[in-house]
């Protein structure tokens, strides 16, 4: 995949715009996901930060699903590891930031290698089911609240005096947390870009296209599959850390349930699996839309709608699920595929 000049221009422009959003105090009606119609209001910054976090996680997931072609249903496990290990080391054990981060990524790495190696003993659908089962077991473990560590269903709020002041969850820090989330996305993008463009990345794609052929060429796919799995897991954990900093509370249903995995999968497919910008765009649109729909359905005028409109519209899960079904049925390749087809058609017309 070569880098087109237009791609670079769009990427740099998007980078600069998103970097500067916290300074843009422009009034915009209707389309913002917050009740305050100003671009750099706390609510909007928070939603955008959430978009960045899931964009990064989706990008990591795209490495295993889109590039390597393995339908893992376990990314939430590593997202939850990021959220909970970071939260526990800071809140319960009062560790400083750097050791907490090292511990979080260390545990994630070990978990990813162990569970990845077990799950990759089987292939195809069985792999999918095994990753799903492990993630579900992990969810039960968190709900069980072992030794009072995770807080179970009630959740665990991030409370730490050791966290640097600019990172704490105060409203005045939303801007900093926005940049942290954005930084996470940029770093994830850089890592995923380097790996997928490298020789290793080409092996990932070869596994997706024809694993048997790769074996015939004398390359053993297992190590590469595990590598893709571990990379996507570590990115998911990084997303978990950014998430808990931003949101401030870990609740199992929001950070560890299968629904989260399915949302990540939907983001990648909506945007276009196997393309980096597609996964990022899909995730940004998904999260933005979800938050926006929540805001719209909470508005007082919404209650006056007839129930056959109000009930479906008040459920982002319904709308996003339905959009997803329509995309899978009618828009193969997602947004990236759509743009690609559009571009091919236009170039054909220019030439012709």
């Amino acid at each position, binding site marked *: 995949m070569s880098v087109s000049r237009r791609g670079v221009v769009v990427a740099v422009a998007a980078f600069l715009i998103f970097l500067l959003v916290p300074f843009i105090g422009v009034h915009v009606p209707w389309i913002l996901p917050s009740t305050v119609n100003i671009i750099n209001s706390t609510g909007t910054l928070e939603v955008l930060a959430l978009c960045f976090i899931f964009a990064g996680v989706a990008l990591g997931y795209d490495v295993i699903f889109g590039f390597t072609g393995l*339908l893992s249903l376990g990314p939430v496990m590593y997202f939850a590891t990021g959220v909970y290990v970071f939260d526990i080391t800071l809140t319960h054990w009062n560790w400083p930031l750097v050791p907490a981060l090292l511990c979080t990524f260390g545990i994630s790495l070990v978990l990813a290698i162990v569970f990845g190696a*077990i799950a990759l*003993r*089987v292939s195809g*659908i*069985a792999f*999918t*089911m*095994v990753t*799903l*089962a*492990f993630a*579900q*077991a992990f969810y*039960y*473990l968190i*709900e*069980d*609240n*072992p*030794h*009072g560590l995770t807080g179970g269903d009630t959740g665990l709020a991030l409370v730490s005096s050791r966290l640097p002041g600019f990172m704490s969850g105060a409203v005045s820090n939303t801007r900093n947390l926005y940049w942290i989330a954005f930084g996470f996305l940029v770093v994830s993008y850089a890592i995923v870009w380097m790996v997928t463009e490298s020789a290793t990345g080409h092996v990932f794609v070869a596994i997706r296209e024809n694993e048997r052929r790769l074996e015939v060429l004398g390359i053993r796919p297992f190590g590469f599959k595990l590598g893709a799995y571990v990379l996507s897991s570590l990115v998911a954990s990084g997303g978990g850390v950014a998430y808990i900093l931003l949101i401030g509370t870990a609740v199992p249903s929001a950070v560890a349930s*299968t*629904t989260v995995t*399915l949302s990540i*999968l*939907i983001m990648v*497919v909506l945007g276009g699996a196997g393309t980096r910008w597609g996964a990022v765009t899909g995730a940004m649109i998904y999260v933005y839309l979800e938050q926006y729909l929540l805001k719209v359905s909470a508005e007082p005028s919404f209650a006056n709608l007839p129930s056959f409109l109000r*009930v*479906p519209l*008040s*459920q*982002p*899960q*319904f*709308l*996003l*699920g*339905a959009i*997803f*079904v329509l995309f*899978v*049925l009618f828009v*193969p390749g997602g947004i990236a595929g759509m743009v690609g087809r559009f571009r091919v058609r236009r170039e054909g017309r220019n030439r012709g």
Partner: protein
Amino acid sequence: MSVFLTLAFSGVALGSIYFLAASGLSLIYGLMDILNFAHGLFMTIGAYVAWDVATHLPASWGAPVLFIIAMVASVLGGSLAAGLTEVFIIRPLYGRPISQILVTIGLDLAVVGLLLGGFGSNSLSIPVPLWLIEASHLGHVSLPNSDFVALIAGLVVLVVLEWFLRRSRYGIIIRAGVENRDMVSALGINVGRAFTLVFVIGGAMAGLAGLLYAVVFSGDLIAPTQGDSLLIFAFIVVVIGGLGSIRGSAVAALIVGLVQDYTNYYLGSHSGMAEIGNLSVVLLLAIVLEWRPRGLFQGTL
């Protein structure tokens, strides 16, 4: 000892319900290579249709009659939902297995979202005959009557399904299709019709499983997300039993039901181990896969 026997009995009842859910999944996978995420939805729809019918018919008909009608309704609801799904959503995607899986995921999310919007996340109560809540006593052993219903339903379905797959014309087509789909179509047999049929059969069993799970293990309560949590265990049963194998599903369902039931009772009372039953099932899956990566019975329908 009597506790041990009661647990064995309820474990078998749980296994029967897992079998109802898993055998359909396994057939669908065996024939069409689809991991059907909408199967949990079919269970939920079965339970909601049963609830809708049972609460809207006149109570004067008597609870036993209403419950039997509700069971029939759950079967019809599940099979109708599954048949429509196959025809309108799966069929356009033949030959694209990943897309088929994705579309069932989207469908499940969308319709569960709709149910959450329409009925709320709170549980609804299904009216059941008093007899179903009581227990029978065999000597010192007390056996809940609802467990009998689940057990009998599981046995009946197992026998009918075995008969259907081995003796009927369509059953033989389905078995042949699981064995080698391309060969069956090459012989000029319409496999597409068999695809719809396995979905309808799977949906019927799933619908019944959804209702029975609510009645036997959930205090007659149904909720929009119930099917999805059951689905995970159905998946585990299918993988342990071997993808595509009905007998494998039956054996694996019993093992999983019993393991879950015993570990839940004997270990689940300790603090921080409330979910040990569920965890032990996942552990079992890991052990089976290490020992036999293709499941216990793959290759034998």
